[in-house]
Structure formats: C-alpha cells, structure tokens
C-alpha cells in the first residue's frame, strides 16, 4: 500500500519568490512519481496561482504562502494557503477564447490555464485564509 506522504513549507509571497515555490513543488512531484509529461503543467499552474496570490490577496504587500503537498489515494495535491484579503480565483470570468485580437481581454487567463492544466481545483476561505488546492490524478 502506498504511503500517504505530505510536506509543507512557508514562503514569502513576493513575485521574486515564485520560482522557488515552483521548484519546491516540482521536486516533490518528481519524487512522488508524477508522470513526466504533467510536470510542466503543474509548474505552470503553481506559478499562475502564486502570482495571483501575490497580486490579489496581498496586493503586492508582504505576506506568506504556506505550500502543503500531499500524495495519497492516487492524487497529488498542492495546497496554497495565504492570509491575504478574501480572494477566490475561481470566480474570475472565463475568457472568451473565440474573440478577435481587438476584442480579446487579458483578464482571467491565469486561472483559465490552472483549470485546464490541473485535474481539479478547489478554493475555500477558512479561518481568515484563502486556501487554493490544485490536484493531479496520478493513478491514470
């Protein structure tokens, strides 16, 4: 039976820091046996999520992001918790990808990519924290 594995680390929520968070998640994912072809998807989703947190939850002020990784039951999940203002990225309007160049807006692309790259995405607001969880299924 596979062990449930978890690890967590706290990072400063600054734009400069996102590469370290992405690398942390990437290394844990590779070690957990997440398929090679999903690793770029995961790294991109984590970058998008972290950049959103820095901009919208912390408005570029200082703050922290707790990154908790779990691998159990065929799911590899990345849980990002911050203490910023309430920010639910899943409420962003879905970009209309059929619009022409002049009509296309640039908003909502980050969360759009997160949803397309991950198998599941959850958000909850609990105890003054935004908690965003990205999930990859590893047993398919």
């Amino acid at each position, binding site marked *: 039976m596979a062990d449930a594995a978890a690890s967590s680390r706290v990072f400063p929520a600054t734009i400069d820091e996102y590469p370290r968070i992405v690398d942390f998640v990437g290394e844990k994912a590779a070690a957990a046996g997440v398929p090679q072809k999903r690793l770029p998807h995961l790294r*991109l989703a984590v970058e*998008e999520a972290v*950049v959103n947190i820095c901009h919208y939850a912390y408005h570029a002020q200082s703050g922290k992001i707790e990154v908790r990784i779990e691998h159990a039951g065929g799911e590899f999940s990345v849980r990002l918790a911050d203490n910023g203002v309430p920010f639910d990225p899943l409420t962003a309007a879905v970009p209309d*990808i059929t619009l022409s*160049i002049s009509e296309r807006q*640039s908003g909502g692309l*980050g969360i*759009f*990519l997160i949803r*397309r790259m991950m198998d599941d995405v959850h958000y909850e607001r609990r105890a003054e924290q935004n908690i965003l969880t990205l999930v990859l299924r590893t047993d398919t």
Partner: protein
Amino acid sequence: MQPDPVYTVVPVTGRLDTATTTAFEKQCVKLISEGISHIVLDLTGLQYISSSGLRSILVVAKKLQANDGALALCNPGGIVQEVISISGFDNIFPVYDNLEALATHSAGE
C-alpha cells in the same frame, strides 16, 4: 496585387513569464516606434510561457493591429504549443512551422 508584407523576426527564447515579459514588450514597442508593422515571433527556443506571456503577446498584437499591421507566431513546441492552443491564440494569430513561409528580415537590418 499587394505585395506580401515583410515580417520582422523577433526570436523569443527561454521563458516568457512574469519576470521576462517587460523586456519582451519593450523590445517590440521599440520596433513598432521605428515603423515596424509586421512581426513574427520565432518561438523555436521558447521553453515556457505563462499567462503573463500571453498577455504581453496580446498587447503587442493590439498595437500592431492599430497600425494596420499584424503579429504571427512561428514554431511553438512543448508546453508553449499547448498553452497557445488552449488559450485560442492559434485561432487569432497565424502559426507557422518555420520562417520559410514568410518574407522576413531580422530586426536591425
């Protein structure tokens, strides 16, 4: 018959993400200010693109279009190709496998 436009080739290599889009946009805006109206982004060496990168491509495209110009993309691969496809950018920009299909010159010629 109108001649085909000549595209200026802008190679985009490495990553186009939050950290690198400012320099990329500046480079393109400078070309536009010099009168360039058609740009092809050579994505052969681009390993990674995020939503920031997509946004900056859109900004450049809108500026070119405002001057009756156009943006084209060339040879995206790997996750770059996936992101371009998922975001519908391959519907609004022509995507070429290589530069042979276009009349081009390099920036600075």
